[in-house]
């Protein structure tokens, strides 16, 4: 019996035993508990494939379910209240929220929220997880594959190609294990509002999330040997906060302390190389297995997310001074991480070379220049705003924000590193404490027109000051014009915004700051990383809501945004988006409502690059560019109706995305031709839900639930995927097409 079913049976028994008392008066205390709602249902779930997409964030299974349960209680005299709201009781996507307290005095809430996330079903794993984070392949198979490869390499290395390797792996893949990829987040949040103690009100909050399961991880032994693994997830995140609030007639103050700790039970993941049972190295080991080498490590090693902790002290203030409303927030936080470092590699054949030329075993942690990461960041944030209304119709506001990400992490110098577990690279590297400061200033002038009209003008400047990046300083000037009004039965909101970001000198050498001895520029000098690049943009939005009659209303809108990276010869050059939407709602009659909506978005992204060999190409014929066109349509309708004892709720949504990658490269260079594709994420989902209820008695209704979903995915990135492709042993979990029908019989009980 599944744990879910045991839980449900236990709960049902408890309800049967205590249902009576729950519904009865507790006369001794005056506290009355009610079972406000209890939904009991039986579902039949029929899905035609094993795609994980159907249950991506849910837990639909055939069988008994409790979709909803609400228990409330209260005491009119004392103000004591209780509320327990539950959904999908016992399932992996259940949620329970308990509120308890005394109105106006104190209260507490405990919320337990279970969130599944499925990434792919029926994945195939050649290796076996023998212990958490340890993936092994039987020695027999490893030896067989290594021997075959070594012999073939000696006989005719050129024959070691995809077809050869695929044939080699096929029988072992056929016999390998399958698994489902996904994780579960179990979140608990407890909030305690202690109410006022004197002039102060106090709040305590604690959150804990346990996250467990797995997710795909690209482990690799080289350019041609990706071994995708299910990264084991065993996380615990704990957050606690205490805050106080002081309110006065003309202002208020809140302050507090927040602490967060992230813990990962697994520091590292270690996995066998399917193609090697004995570790070896050679200058081409990271090309193995292939014509260049069949060497490499027998074992791979990856450091998983390290434990970290963060804390913040904060104070927020607000006051009224004459006609001015002033507010501000100040916080100081630290983020720290000091996990022990893993060794360079698990490859016992690799010998490292230190700064002094002395050699060492690269598998020894003692050979590292430091034992721990010693990473720390201080974050100082200050925001302030001042707003006033003057001369009846005018408002004026100023806002300032200062955000300083001060990276105090240790700068650690490594004499080299192990490339792909295959070979020691005597290239000194140094960790870089990237840091930045953002300053935002804005002023907002508003003019009221009539009762509901407002014209607004905002000017702002956002300035960045970065350390160790290509751009040290940049300034973006922003202007926004807004107009909001009511024109009779029409609510209209309009906004136009434009921005112009200017940048300081672009240092292409900055990317080499991680090298102790810079190797020379290898990025295209004319490339601009788009997050730092000079940019001009303008955006436009009109939203309307027209109350055509007391029964009919129409909401509509058009929004667009156009980003031009004006000084970027290579990289992202342009990004343009335009969207339209309309929604019509119709109250057909008392208890009968209908809505339909449609949304369309068109996005066009243009980027350019130049293919290069070992040095940046200077030949324009090596250029290539791509325009991505994405069209997305979403339409839906909903209808609900209450007639006598019948109640009907219908909802349907259709979403279709059509993407295109239009590529170009001038002839004569390398590449000589670019061939685009038309499955740049073509996705369609049709979803339909129906709930039909009939009231059997005032306290009991019977209902029929129906849910239909049809999903299809056609994406270049999943095209032709299988368990082994050139250079990649993949998990290949199924998250593709499905058609699902869910039928349920539900009883809704109210006491």
């Amino acid at each position, binding site marked *: 019996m599944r744990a879910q079913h045991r839980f449900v049976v236990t709960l049902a028994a408890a309800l049967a035993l205590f249902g009576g008392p729950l519904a009865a008066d507790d006369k001794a205390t005056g506290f009355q508990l009610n079972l406000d709602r209890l939904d009991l249902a039986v579902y039949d779930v029929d899905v035609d494939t094993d795609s994980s997409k159907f249950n991506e*964030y849910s837990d639909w299974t055939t069988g008994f379910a409790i979709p909803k349960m609400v228990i409330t209680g209260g005491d009119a005299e004392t103000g004591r209240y209780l509320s327990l709201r539950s959904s999908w009781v016992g399932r992996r996507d259940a949620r329970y929220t308990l509120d308890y307290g005394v109105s106006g005095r104190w209260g507490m809430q405990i919320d337990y929220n279970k969130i599944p996330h499925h990434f792919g079903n029926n994945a195939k794993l050649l290796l076996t997880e023998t212990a958490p984070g340890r993936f092994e392949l039987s020695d027999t198979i490893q030896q067989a594959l290594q021997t075959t490869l070594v012999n073939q390499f000696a006989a005719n290395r050129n024959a070691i190609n995809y077809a050869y390797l695929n044939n080699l792996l096929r029988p072992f893949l056929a016999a390998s294990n399958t698994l489902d990829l996904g994780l579960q987040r179990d979140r608990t949040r407890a909030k305690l509002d202690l109410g006022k103690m004197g002039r102060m009100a106090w709040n305590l909050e604690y959150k804990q999330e346990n996250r467990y399961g797995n997710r795909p991880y690209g482990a690799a032994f080289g350019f041609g040997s990706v071994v995708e693994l299910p990264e084991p997830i065993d996380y615990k995140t704990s957050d606690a906060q205490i805050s106080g609030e002081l309110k006065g007639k003309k202002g208020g103050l809140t302050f507090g302390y927040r602490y967060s700790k992230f813990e990962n039970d697994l520091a590292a993941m270690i996995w066998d190389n399917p193609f090697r049972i004995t570790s070896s190295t050679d200058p081409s080991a990271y090309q193995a297995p292939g014509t260049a080498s069949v060497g490499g490590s027998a074992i791979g090693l990856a450091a998983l997310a390290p434990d970290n902790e963060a804390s913040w002290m904060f104070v927020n203030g607000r006051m009224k001074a004459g006609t001015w409303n002033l507010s501000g927030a100040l916080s100081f936080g630290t983020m720290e991480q000091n996990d022990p470092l*893993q060794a360079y590699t698990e490859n016992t054949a690799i010998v490292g070379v230190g700064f002094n030329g002395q050699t060492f075993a690269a598998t020894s942690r003692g050979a590292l220049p430091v034992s721990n990461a010693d990473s720390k960041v201080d*974050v100082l944030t200050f925001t302030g705003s001042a707003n006033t209304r003057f001369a009846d119709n005018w408002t004026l506001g100023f806002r300032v924000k200062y955000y300083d990400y001060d990276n105090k992490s240790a700068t650690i110098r490594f004499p080299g590193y192990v490339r792909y577990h295959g070979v020691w690279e005597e290239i000194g590297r140094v960790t870089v404490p990237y840091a930045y400061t953002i300053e935002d200033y804005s002023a907002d002038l508003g003019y009221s027109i009539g009762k509901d009209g407002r014209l607004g003008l905002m000017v702002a400047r956002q300035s960045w000051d970065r350390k160790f990046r290509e751009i040290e300083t940049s300034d973006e000037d922003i202007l926004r014009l807004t107009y909001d009004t009511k024109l009779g039965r029409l609510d209209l909101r309009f906004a136009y915004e434009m921005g112009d970001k200017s940048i300081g000198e672009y240092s292409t050498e900055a990317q080499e700051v991680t090298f102790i001895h810079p190797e020379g520029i290898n990025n295209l000098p004319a490339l601009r990383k788009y997050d730092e690049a000079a940019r001009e943009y303008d955006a436009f939005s009109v939203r309307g809501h027209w109350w055509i009659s007391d029964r009919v209303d129409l909401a509509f809108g058009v929004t667009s945004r156009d980003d031009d990276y004006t000084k970027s010869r290579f990289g992202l050059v342009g990004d343009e988006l335009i969207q339209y939407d309309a929604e019509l709602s119709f109250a057909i009659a008392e208890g009968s409502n209908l809505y339909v909506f449609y949304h369309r978005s068109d996005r066009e992204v243009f980027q350019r690059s130049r293919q290069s060999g070992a040095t940046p190409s200077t030949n324009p014929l090596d250029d290539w560019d791509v325009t991505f066109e994405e069209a997305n349509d979403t339409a839906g309708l909903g209808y609900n109706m209450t007639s006598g004892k019948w109640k009907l709720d219908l909802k349907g949504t259709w979403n279709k995305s059509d993407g295109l990658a239009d590529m170009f490269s001038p002839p004569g260079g390398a590449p000589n031709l670019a061939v685009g594709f038309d499955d740049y994420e073509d996705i369609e989902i049709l979803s339909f839900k129906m709930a039909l209820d009939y009231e059997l008695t005032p306290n009991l209704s019977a209902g029929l639930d129906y849910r239909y979903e049809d999903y299809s995915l056609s994406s270049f990135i999943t095209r032709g995927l299988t368990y082994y492709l050139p250079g990649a042993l993949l998990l290949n979990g199924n998250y593709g097409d499905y058609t699902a029908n869910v039928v349920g019989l539900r009883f809704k009980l109210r006491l």
Partner: protein
Amino acid sequence: MNWRLGTSVAVAAVALAWGVSATAQTPGATYVGNDTCATCHEEVVDQVAGTAHGSPAFGRLSAHGCESCHGPGSAHADDPDNEALRPSLAGKKAADKDAMCQSCHDGGKQFFWHGSMHQTRGVSCADCHSVHAPKSEVALLSSRNAMESCLSCHKNVRAELWKNSHHPIREGKIACADCHNPHGTQTAKLIAAESVNEMCYSCHAEKRGPFLWEHAPVRENCLNCHTPHGSNHIKLQKTSVPYICQQCHSNTRHPGTLYDNTRLPGPDAPQTGSNRIFNRACLDCHATIHGSNHPSSPYLGY
């Protein structure tokens, strides 16, 4: 002047020319109590009785019931047909309605209401909340839940939520208010944290670091690569891998290489595939793109 600015000016000009006139409210006189209100507005009084504002405990905060918000109603009770004396909030300016709510709800989540985007754009409390006839189980919303309330205006976001990669918002597992505080914050877009990244870390704490090897744009803003409401590309990417990586990395050798249709595995020709475009593309090797703690991973590889 481009077409967007031109259209904007035209729309604003038409709207301004139309114009709207303000209405005024007449103050009432003395308090008459809920029973008097119920003689005509029984249904409303009954509805409110089922909410926090109608609970007996509310009496400890205010002794005036309906008139706590509507003001003394004696003038209206004496002359109910006189529209000028009606203590309705419906015709008031958004700021006046908000001031009524803020007379109690001015702390906690509402601490920064003044000067917030919703407040300055004229959105009032009553646009989302219904004191008389709430449809939600909590928070007296005029929609069935918080998500519907937000999407009633933010229609674009609704379409985003239906995209292939999305947070579990339409599944009801997280809510808009988990990231945004609609009542006002000191951060742009009503983000309920000091920065976008600090918001994201509240659920994705494993990416908080700081790491031994950092990826600088990741540390500056998660939204450099991700779009939070929905995307058709894996992991809420703004543009699919490998191309989003190539928007910044056009280095020598493979980062600048063209990955076009010829490098995808064909159904009958898997050998044409490149592990730099299929599956998770760049991330097939550079798995620790958010930062790595491994001494041998300056390229965020393992």
